[in-house]
């Protein structure tokens, strides 16, 4: 477990009162005011050094820039920040590798089956087309999305956002939206679930026929490893803060 930090803003009465007065418009402008519009008294920029845990809303003060250690939420223990050296370049390189592997996985034969002198080859495209008959058709689209389209979209979005970052440039147009898309796609990009499905399918047909893996299988397996490894390098908060500070410089 990562080292727990003490950046939590303790619920100290004096601190809480100060905060409430400074920032809560309802309190600052009397109980009759509804906190609707922007509070003129507070410059939102001073709030940049705070972060609220997305899981439980606990406020934390961010560690100083350059600290290379993982920090967890004091209450729910979610990892808030996990910075790594030159992570941006690594992530872009790995996303590029994963994209090339995905193209290889689509182009080459995936699995082949031999039984009673008959043989059947199957590519990723064939797997997607397995449900293309009749009312199962929507499932074909879903499988295509889950194992090819969404993982590719996620990789493309990550590269679009982080490639300019790794060169030290200003963020590309729409980078914020692209990164939010990449985050939203995360649960739906199911390449690693698919590879477990392949393992189960191999066991299921083992009694029936002889099965051999094609080059696409190994490309896909490598793709899964690269993607999972890549996700451990991704620190959401570091990326958001870098994007914000670079966008401000533009």
């Amino acid at each position: 477990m990562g080292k727990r930090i003490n950046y939590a803003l303790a619920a100290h009465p004096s601190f809480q009162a100060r905060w409430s007065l400074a920032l809560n418009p309802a309190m600052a402008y009397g109980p009759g005011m509804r906190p609707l519009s922007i509070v003129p008294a507070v410059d939102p920029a001073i709030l940049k050094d705070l972060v609220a845990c997305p899981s439980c809303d606990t406020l934390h003060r961010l560690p100083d820039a350059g600290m290379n250690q993982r920090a967890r939420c004091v209450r729910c223990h979610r990892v808030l920040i996990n910075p790594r050296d030159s992570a941006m370049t690594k992530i872009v390189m790995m996303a590029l590798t994963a994209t090339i592997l995905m193209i290889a996985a689509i182009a080459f034969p995936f699995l082949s089956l031999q039984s009673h002198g008959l043989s059947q080859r199957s590519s990723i495209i064939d797997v997607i087309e397995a449900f293309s008959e009749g009312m199962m058709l929507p499932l074909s689209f879903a499988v295509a999305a889950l194992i090819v389209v969404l993982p590719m979209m996620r990789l493309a979005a990550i590269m679009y956002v982080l490639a300019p970052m790794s060169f030290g440039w200003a963020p590309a147009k729409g980078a914020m939206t692209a990164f939010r898309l990449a985050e939203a796609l995360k649960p739906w990009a199911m390449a690693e679930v698919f590879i477990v499905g392949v393992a189960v399918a191999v066991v299921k047909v083992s009694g029936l026929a002889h099965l051999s893996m094609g080059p696409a299988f190994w490309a896909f397996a490598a793709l899964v490893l690269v993607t999972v490894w890549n996700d451990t390098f991704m620190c959401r908060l570091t990326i958001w803060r870098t994007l914000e500070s670079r966008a401000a410089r533009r």
Partner: protein
Amino acid sequence: MANAGIPRRAPLTARAAGLVACHECGRVHPLGFTTCLRCGAALSSRDPFSLQKVWAWWLVGLMVYIPANLYPMLVTTSLGKTSENTLLGGVIELVHIGSYGVAGIVFFASIMIPIGKMFAIPYLAIKVARPDSRSAHLRHWLFEVVEFIGRWSMVDVFVVAILSSLVQLGGVVSIKPGFAALCFALSVAFTMLAAISFDSRLIWDADKGNAE
């Protein structure tokens, strides 16, 4: 674990400090802001429709989960003889082959996880309305498990897709997907959406010292 420097009262939340936090990037703003200054996401201190969405997705997920168990997942035609396998039948078949490890994985992904989610999601939603601060850690853990593990149920749908594309050996043996594959995939997707819709900050709102 000792939390040096942290009082016994619950930590200050963004909402208690008069702030609204971005769910996407963690940036805090004064209450009243509707769009995140950092990432452009819509801001809400707590998603007011969270529980409605959770219940709606859970209900449709449960509705398609029933046919997913009754209809066949796989239809195998071997030398003119047709046999059908349900979700549970697929696991039993793996036990008969003697692959207990793989049978265990499939049983866990296709039977245990969906059933567990069907109970865990309403439990989490009900507990928001009737909170007690002591179980917050347990409920948060449960939510993270549901959120993390839900997508792995999709394994069986992929198995069906792979088998039906691969096992097409003319008259000898061929495999076709059954109607349950569609229902099960929808059920997994709907319960994933239920978990995504759940605003986990609601779990902690009953935490002591956070009542105002």
